[in-house]
């Protein structure tokens, strides 16, 4: 680890004042510290946000606000979340391990870097880590690579489970900038596609910090599901994951939300499939058709076409489980 100065400011203003061009912000540290240990991030200046970010979780008239400093476990086990936003809880609990979830925060989760293995190997080219050096995954091992939205510069995927639920639920990201102004971004627009600049994961401006994530009220009740397919049953990143939420009245789907992790550079919404399901009955045939529609949009790489088969199964399973309104943990 490169030696660094460590600061623990008490306000956003102080934090911004301490920031230099070689600054890294530290929240839970569950990814940032790894990056520093592996010399992928070599900040000279580490600003600890512990006293700056709030961990408050507050219910408002139109939704719930998760302070950027709230830990994954605080969110996942919050009574309001469990009752009104169970998809958020299920997605969080599908990720990492209890120890990591005790440290990892809401804000940090959004800003974690990819888990593409080439990003973590400083001996090999990676445009995300070292812009212009090339993409090793493009012709390499693609088990953890994208099947949609990638570019010739980068095929990495965003690793979060939490974010898949948030994008499905139309969450918003609230940020504060060094000039004191606040801004709200839709969750879908917060993360970006790699394009020509894969080194940038998000649209968060340079001098800005996440203050909270707002999740609007919804009428999905228990008609939600999070299905994650991975290499082992706990503590593994998704090969593919699916968040599904349905508003069903008299057997007819009025609103459908369908999102995936492990498929793209950002948490991915399957809007065409959502539209397809709208006003259709909640039947296996329709779920299968929605899955086929999703598959028709994907463009797997040479060595990860297996992901489409997994995705299809995960979508059908998630929609079926959401329609069953069971909230069972095992699918």
């Amino acid at each position, binding site marked *: *680890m490169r030696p660094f100065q460590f600061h623990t400011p008490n306000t956003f203003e102080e934090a911004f004042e301490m920031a230099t061009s070689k600054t890294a912000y530290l929240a839970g540290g569950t990814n940032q510290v790894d990056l520093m*240990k592996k010399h992928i991030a070599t900040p000279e200046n580490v600003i600890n946000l512990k006293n700056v970010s709030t961990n408050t979780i507050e219910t408002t008239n139109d939704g719930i606000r998760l302070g950027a400093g709230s830990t994954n476990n605080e969110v996942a086990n919050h009574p309001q979340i469990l009752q009104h936003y169970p998809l958020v809880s299920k997605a969080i609990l599908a990720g990492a391990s209890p120890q990591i979830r005790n440290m990892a925060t809401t804000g940090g989760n959004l800003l974690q870097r990819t*888990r593409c293995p080439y990003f973590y190997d400083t001996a*090999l080219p990676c445009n995300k880590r070292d812009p212009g050096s090339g993409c090793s995954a493009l012709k390499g091992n693609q088990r953890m690579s994208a099947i949609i939205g990638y570019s010739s510069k980068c095929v990495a995927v965003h690793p979060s489970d939490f974010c898949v639920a948030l994008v499905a639920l139309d969450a918003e990201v609230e940020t504060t900038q060094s000039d004191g102004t606040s801004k709200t971004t839709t969750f879908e627009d917060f993360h970006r596609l790699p394009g020509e600049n894969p080194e940038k994961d998000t649209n968060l401006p340079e001098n800005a910090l996440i203050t909270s994530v707002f999740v609007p009220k919804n009428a999905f009740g228990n008609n939600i599901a999070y*299905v994650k*397919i991975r290499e*082992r049953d706990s503590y593994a990143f998704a090969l593919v994951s699916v968040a599904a939420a349905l508003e069903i009245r008299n057997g007819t789907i009025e609103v459908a939300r369908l999102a995936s992790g492990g498929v793209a550079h950002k948490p991915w919404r399957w809007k065409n499939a959502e539209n397809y399901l709208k006003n259709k009955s909640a039947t296996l045939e329709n779920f299968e058709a929605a899955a086929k529609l999703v598959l028709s949009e994907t463009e797997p790489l040479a060595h990860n076409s*297996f992901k489409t088969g997994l995705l299809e*199964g995960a979508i059908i*399973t998630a929609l079926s489980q959401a329609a069953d309104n069971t909230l069972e943990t095992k699918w």
Partner: protein
Amino acid sequence: MVKPFNILSNRKGRVEGKAKVTGKALYSAEYELPKLAHGVLVGSTITNGKIIGIDTSIAKEIPGVIDVLSYWNKPNIAALENAEKRKDFPIHHTFFHTTKIDFNDQPIALVVAETLEDASFAASLVKAQYEENKDMDIDFDNVRKRVDLNDMKDDRGSSSNWQNAPHIVDQEYEIAMEVHNPMEMHATIAQWDSANSLRVYDKSQGVNAVQNNLGALFNLDPKNIRVTSEFVGGGFGSGLNMWFNTVAASLAAKQLNRPVKVVLTRPQMFTMVGYRPESWQRVKIGAATDGKLLGVIHQSKHTKSQNHHFSEGITAIAHKVYGFENVQRNATTVPLHLSSPTWMRGPGDSTGTFGVESAIDELCYKMDVDPVDIRMKNIAPYEMQTGNPWSSHFLDECLQRGAETIGWENRPTKPLQLKEGNWYTGYGMAVGLWNAMRRHAGASIEMDKKGNLVIRTAMTDIGTGTGEAIVNMAHEFLGIPREKIKIELGDSIHPKAVTQGGSWGLSSLSGAIAAASTALKEKLATYASTNDQQWKAASIVLGENEISMQGKPDQKVTYASLFTKNNLDTIMVEEYSSAGEEREKYGFCSSAAHFYRVKVHALTGQVKMDRMVIVVDAGTIVNPQAAANQIIGAGVGGVGMALTEKQEVDINSGRLVGNDFAGYHVAVNADVPLIEVSFIDKPDPHINPMGAKGLGEVGLIGAAPAITNAIYNAIGVRFRKLPVTPDKVTSSFNSSA
């Protein structure tokens, strides 16, 4: 032997347990020495070629950096001074004495600094210049086709007369590269007390082997080298060799004349301490209509590195387990530009067993016979290679008990019969067998005036509970209360003992403990005997405060009076023991039967272990809790082999992909049910004084094929390539649909 005491109580825990959970137990990296410097290894970033220069100038600018060792900066070692001499040493001892690069991440430098942080940051700044050879052999599947099989020259019977057998299975099986990765990273602290005296703390499965290796390297009498490996955070075979971390720390300590610690990073654990090689095998088995197995052809290939020969016997297992009269074996190794593989739990046999036990299962479905019946019918009636009768062999009882426990009779005999929602359920079984060995080991016992004992041996405890087993054995042989026994292990100043591994540790030690116990009783008999009262060594029982004679309740003498009478401070005995002529007369093996139930999800491809029943014959069970612990761990390892573990290699660069605990998936608690372990627990009459046969390996052997056999029973798809990841399951459903 007669067992006077009902010893094998169910005392829970381990003699060293409290020290371990309170952090008092010191692992090799945890010793604090004055002026200790920290070394971090730098690996090559090319796979094949030559290192022609190294730029350490930026690294050396980092405050705290003391020196950077490499080919160009190292102490003179006479034993390695020329290429001819270096041939006597494995390549992983000589990385600083060669410019040739044969695999990616081959150690090229050691950065030594005042702190670990300084050393690891500076290590990231070392730049090397290479002449790179872009040709490299990385892809096992391709390269193995260029390498011919060798005849193992021990064929039995005929390989032609059964080729028209009524039932034949002829299939190929493959297993991915697996890495050991015990929790504790390999670590060494080396300190030269003088030019001729080396002190080493080393994570190792055998301190005497490290002592000898370092002696050869530095031209020292092993007596002048002390190696300590008191606690080992898991070995699994990775600690059987002495690796470069030990050499690098010793070289640096010599160069800098101060103690140096080298701890491998987690990614270095993937390239610097061996792994289970990727393998291919072909198994052809023929059977008669009555289920008699007629013949086997077993062929195998596995990876090795360019410059270090490593070969494990994958094809030896079929005719150990079954009474094949016709056996043909062919094998070879495939040199790749990867680091050296090494022994990993159940080496060879666990790989070969995947092929054999899968093939027999395939045969059973072809023949429509019960997989348990065909095994019962064909268990080798004696040791096939020698013709010797088994000393003890209760695989049949393992099979019966396992079948009963899991309800084998009620299983579906055809695939796709049990379905609930999208989950299919299936049952599978397989057996495992491992030669039960015994090697040379010594132990000493020191008794003080209060009758307290300290038992010492150089053997390490690699996490298997060796210390507690010694307590139990000493209690068995002497009758002494367990609380009066202290154990000191894993130090070369103690009586020499064989490296802990190969499931022979406890078996070997039991001879030493028995011999030392006998010697102690003989001394006590001599000290206690008077003209009026004779003491017979064999009948002495050691109590809390006194010794007594078995069957003579009135004959007693306290430790205090015994020591005073004879003017003693301590009583010391030291004894060594080896296997004897029983090895010429009998075959020795441990065995296991695995009976598993799995659930397979048709849409997501998830395979869920639903029940795991493992029944083991390992002779006397000396420490029931630790023994079960071993088998449970082996079962989890089997789940990893079958379902999750695969080390990926980047074909373009030769670097490992995802070489950390996030990228390489060992099975975790969530992947396994409560594993149901039981032991036959009948003493072997000849193997050693305890009647105990080793059980470290056998729990893993057979676990993986039992899982794939159960998957076949669930969904009718035969997986011959491990691991069976969810994508393979879904694509097999899609292709069959």
